[in-house]
């Protein structure tokens, strides 16, 4: 069978990581999936052990001299389910005693399973076709991308050195967030451009994270060239997942360094606040708690900026989750798993909501469209409720 090698999708560093796992089990304490399922069989060390077994059985010494062993299809299926059930939040890697970069390892294992035709699972499998058809993974018309939420008062420049990328999840599932983004950018006063609804296609992250890499290069080239045509030198984005893939993978997928700089919107807003270009009418008298999105804090190191902005928005001290910053706890929205493993996702989301309430917060501040969509959905039939607001949505509502 072609593709017998299980190590094909993994880099040398990732293969070393598989051998480095000591199976100490410490990561289980930080795994949000363990919190809600309590099944060690789908834990990080078990996934690593099983994948290592696959490699040994097909590429190890015995396989070389005696021929590779047929992997039990049931075991393959169980493993695939375990690796796709993960939210790829990377909390396990952050606390790994040997420093394994799991936020990157799991997607590559998924890629291997996709190559073998076993993954992805459920809704995830429809994403490539939807991206091809509509430019987004949600199978929604491209014409609807900006229509529902884009304020009519906002003027978007045809060309500018500054551009804003809304992203699919924000545009289709977390409209208050992207609406807040453009309102804040408009208030700062620097002209910015956006691609048209048909031009602004998926950044590639949902495909990357679900191991479906075939369309990635094409999407990235299309987007980068469209921004270059508009004279863009700085691309702003608020979605942590989009920001993550833009900074970490776009250069490799584009084949050379990007001709513009990618920044998270909070970085731009912090500068604007420091230059006095953002006026806040009256700070809130509320106790705010901020949830660090996994791909923003652990992924690209944006930790201080949201807190700086929040410190300007309330006169009360910011409350922190028990696990915050790079150690933040996944809310359940990650890894393209929220639509497939709904029960897990809701349970994790409710854990986040419950902790925020327990900490005495009046409002839970988010900074990720996937977190926003999930937490609002999970709260619907949750007895415990809290006001959920996106960071830019809040800032936009307090602009003077």
């Amino acid at each position, binding site marked *: 069978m072609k593709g017998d*090698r299980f*190590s*094909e*999708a*993994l*880099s*040398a*560093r*990732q*293969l*070393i*990581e*598989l*051998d*480095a*796992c*000591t*199976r*100490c*089990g*410490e*990561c*289980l*304490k930080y795994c949000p999936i363990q919190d809600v399922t309590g099944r*060690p069989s789908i*834990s990080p*060390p078990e996934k690593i*052990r099983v994948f290592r077994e696959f*490699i040994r059985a097909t*590429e*190890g*010494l015995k396989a*070389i001299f005696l021929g590779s062993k047929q992997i039990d299809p049931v075991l393959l299926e169980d493993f695939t389910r375990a690796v796709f059930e993960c939210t790829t939040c990377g909390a396990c890697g952050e*606390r*790994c*005693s*040997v*420093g*394994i*970069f799991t936020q*990157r390892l799991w997607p*590559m294992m998924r890629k291997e399973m996709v190559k073998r035709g076993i993954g992805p699972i459920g809704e995830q499998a429809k994403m490539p076709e939807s991206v091809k058809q509509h430019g987004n993974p949600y199978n929604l018309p491209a014409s609807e991308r900006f229509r529902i939420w884009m304020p009519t008062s906002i003027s978007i420049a045809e060309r500018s050195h500054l551009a804003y990328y809304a992203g699919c999840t924000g545009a289709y599932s977390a409209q208050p967030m992207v609406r807040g983004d453009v309102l804040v950018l408009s208030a700062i006063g620097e002209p910015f451009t956006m691609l048209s609804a048909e031009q602004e296609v998926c950044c590639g992250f949902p495909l*990357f994270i679900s191991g479906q*890499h075939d369309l*990635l290069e094409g999407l990235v080239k299309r987007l980068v060239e469209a921004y270059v045509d508009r004279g863009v030198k700085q691309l702003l984005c608020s979605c942590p997942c989009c*920001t993550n893939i833009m*900074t*970490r*993978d776009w*250069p*490799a*997928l584009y084949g050379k360094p990007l001709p513009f700089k*990618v*920044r*998270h919107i909070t*970085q731009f807003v912090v500068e604007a606040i420091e230059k006095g270009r953002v006026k806040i009418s009256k700070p809130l008298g509320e106790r705010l708690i901020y949830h660090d999105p996994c791909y923003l804090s652990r992924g*690209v*190191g*944006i930790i201080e900026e949201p807190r700086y902005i929040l410190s300007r928005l309330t006169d009360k001290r910011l409350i922190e989750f028990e696990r915050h910053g790079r150690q933040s706890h996944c809310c359940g929205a990650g890894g393209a798993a929220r639509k497939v493993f709904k029960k897990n996702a809701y349970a994790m989301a409710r854990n986040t909501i419950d902790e925020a309430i327990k900490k005495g917060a009046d409002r839970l501040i988010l900074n990720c469209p996937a977190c926003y969509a999930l937490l609002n959905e999970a709260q619907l039939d949750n007895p415990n409720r809290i006001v959920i607001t996106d960071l830019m949505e809040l800032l936009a509502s307090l602009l003077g």
Partner: protein
Amino acid sequence: MKPHDYIICLVSYVSLCVFIIRTLSMCMIWLRGSRKSPELSLITPVPLVRYVAEVLTLLRLLKANGCIWVGEWLFHASLLFIFMRHLRYVLAPIPETVFNLQSFGIFAGYVNLFAISYLLLSRLVIMRKTYTAPYNLFLLTMLAIITTTGVLMKLQHSVDTLQVKFFVLGLVTFDPQPVPLDPLFLVHFVTFLLLLCLLPSHIFAAPLTIADAIKRERDLRGVLHER
């Protein structure tokens, strides 16, 4: 030389070969890794002082679990002294440093036994409810056997060290010598050979991933911020 001497010598060489072949095979798989990883590669040197400090102190484990760290650190540190003490069997003449470390080596044996018992207990009693890898328990059991027999040979039952040295030097110089027929020594030595065959891969891989993690954490700041 009797037949059992030849058997033990053969088993020793086979164990060594298994160890070498396993290690080479592991390295071969590493080298087969994709070179076309869709990831921005940040090729930067490792901050050496931080790296050495992290490896020597097992800092990442300390951050994850202080209780396990105590046991693991004591185990690894004492193992180093035990290894130094055992050098006297393969070196002739014995260097002064190795000679001077002998009493530390004996003390390290007791510490090692304590650390292994502590780790076994914490795995079996405290962590049983969460996750314990059977392979780790098996390794710990083997280590406990090796250390216990080692300590017993020192405490209760003195083995002819000269005969042990002849035997070990014979193995090292490919000039097989009779095996000391002491039950404690035989258990100690055969379990060590078994351990050699089953040595966990993290011994080689973990120092590399720790170096990578240090670089990654340092470079995280540079992903979106000015360095």
